[in-house]
């Protein structure tokens, strides 16, 4: 039985952000509320993040419903981020999703967090089949659809780009997340200091760069120049692997998404890459770029419409769920 029209509540909580969004089956985002754990100092501890989700979650969900102008009984579908992510965070989020599905007697769908980033980007841009550059605190992946799966053509061999920026920023006394502060500093920098540029096929590595940047910092190089050098090197590497993926797959659309997609310089570089290959380019807008519930809700609708259901009994979380492990039943491109 299919209930139409669908109003889906999507709940996201894979890492430091908790979000709830309401989306209609027409692809209209009715609300999208989130809150991010931002410690006074240091990084993200999984236990603290999961506590943040259980403490703030119910209010965020209530707020999402209010902003969407609906009551709990108007929800016809619950979708939640089933993975990949930090175990404690995923479990706190799944618990809320299960309780709501049981209480409201509506179906439950488990969504892959990375796939959701791509689908919400496609909804916003109207793209059908892009090469997606997904960059955040926990992920650095170049993904494209092939043979019924979203396949990871390239990824980081060690740490994610956002993680590299955060750890460097922490050394400099910046608060988490450090990306925006680094971007501000970089705008004032102009002198380039060479940093290790590490591209292996379509993969990148950022740990060597991080070590070198921290060493340069002890040599009293002006912070703006250092941030400028870090950005140019790190984004240059991404541009190259994205370009390899475009040349290899011959796809005509490039989508930039994830929290680090908010960086303007990165958008500018990838727009240049897309132009060289006559591909269309879109950067997902800030409200939909980071981790939030609307992307989970929208992907939940796509999955549900294609016949996907998840019983509460089988709704265990998948902390190591790979992007390419899920059959994408709702896309029929090849």
């Amino acid at each position, binding site marked *: 039985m299919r209930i139409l029209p669908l109003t889906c509540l999507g709940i996201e909580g894979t890492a430091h952000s908790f979000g709830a969004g309401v989306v209609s089956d027409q692809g209209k985002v009715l609300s999208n509320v989130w809150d991010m754990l931002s410690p006074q100092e240091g990084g993200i501890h999984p236990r603290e993040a999961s506590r943040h989700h259980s403490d703030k979650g119910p209010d965020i969900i209530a707020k999402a419903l209010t902003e969407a102008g609906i009551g709990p009984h108007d929800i016809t579908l619950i979708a939640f981020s089933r993975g990949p992510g930090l175990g404690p965070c995923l479990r706190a989020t799944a618990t809320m999703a299960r309780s709501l599905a049981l209480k409201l007697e509506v179906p439950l769908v488990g969504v892959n967090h990375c796939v959701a980033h791509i689908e919400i980007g496609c909804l916003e841009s109207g793209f059908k089949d892009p090469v997606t550059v997904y960059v955040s605190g926990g992920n650095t992946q170049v993904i494209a659809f*092939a043979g019924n799966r979203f396949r990871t053509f390239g990824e980081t061999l060690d740490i994610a780009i956002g993680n590299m920026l955060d750890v460097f920023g922490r050394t400099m006394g910046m608060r988490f997340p450090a990306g925006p502060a680094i971007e501000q500093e970089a705008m004032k920098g102009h002198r380039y200091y060479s940093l290790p540029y590490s591209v292996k096929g379509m993969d990148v590595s950022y740990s060597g760069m991080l070590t070198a940047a921290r060493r340069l910092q002890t040599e009293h190089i002006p912070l703006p120049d250092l941030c400028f050098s870090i950005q140019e090197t790190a984004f240059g590497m991404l*541009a190259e692997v994205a370009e390899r993926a475009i040349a290899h797959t011959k796809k005509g659309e490039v989508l930039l998404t994830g929290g680090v997609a908010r960086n303007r310089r990165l958008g500018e570089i990838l727009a240049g890459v897309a132009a060289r290959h006559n591909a269309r380019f879109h950067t997902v807008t800030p409200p939909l770029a980071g981790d939030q519930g609307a992307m989970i809700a929208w992907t939940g609708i796509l999955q549900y419409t294609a016949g996907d259901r998840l019983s509460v009994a089988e709704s265990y979380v998948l902390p190591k769920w790979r992007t390419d492990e899920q059959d994408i039943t709702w896309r029929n491109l090849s």
Partner: protein
Amino acid sequence: MEEPVLRLEKWAMGAESTIFKTEQWGYPIVLKWRPQKPYLLKDIDELLKKTRTNRECKMLTHARALGVSTPTVHWTDLENYTIAMDFIEGRQLKQLASTLPESRLREICFEFGQSVARMHRGNVVHGDPTTSNVLIDTRSRLWMVDFGLAEWNATTEMKGVDLHLIRRALETTHWDQQEVMLTATLEGYVNLLGSEAEPALSRMDVIRERGRYH
């Protein structure tokens, strides 16, 4: 005396280069040109173009000395980031794979694995060992191309990354034939290296898990 005119035909566009086909003394050759990328910082762009053109030209010859078939380099122009080399009449393994009978595909992959092993035995890694960079010519001979990311003095880690990239390329591009292709490629690799293959093979599995969100 008339200036000789090169008739250039744009042959292919790669991620970092444009390939032109032309003739020299009646023989077909290709020019691999690394153009400027205006969206990159100039310092980075020039450093990459220079080091890669330089490295590719040396590595094509070095890999041949290790027993891997590579196109002969005719000349290089480091100012213009251009390499002139033999034109290989044939097709990429990427395009061929789905058209071949399984037995033939196994043979080619076995040979591909052996070629990679020859480089690794000489402590060289290819750096971008995808099926786009394996050519099969009209006489069924296998060639390796695109050495811009190749490196000398390769450690076990670097060889492990090379194997990881092969596995990745097969998973993403040849998802419906990946098992046959990977098995045959690794068989060829082990066939040539024997027990020396072990460290790089185990490292390949370690590397796969490393960058993942756990």
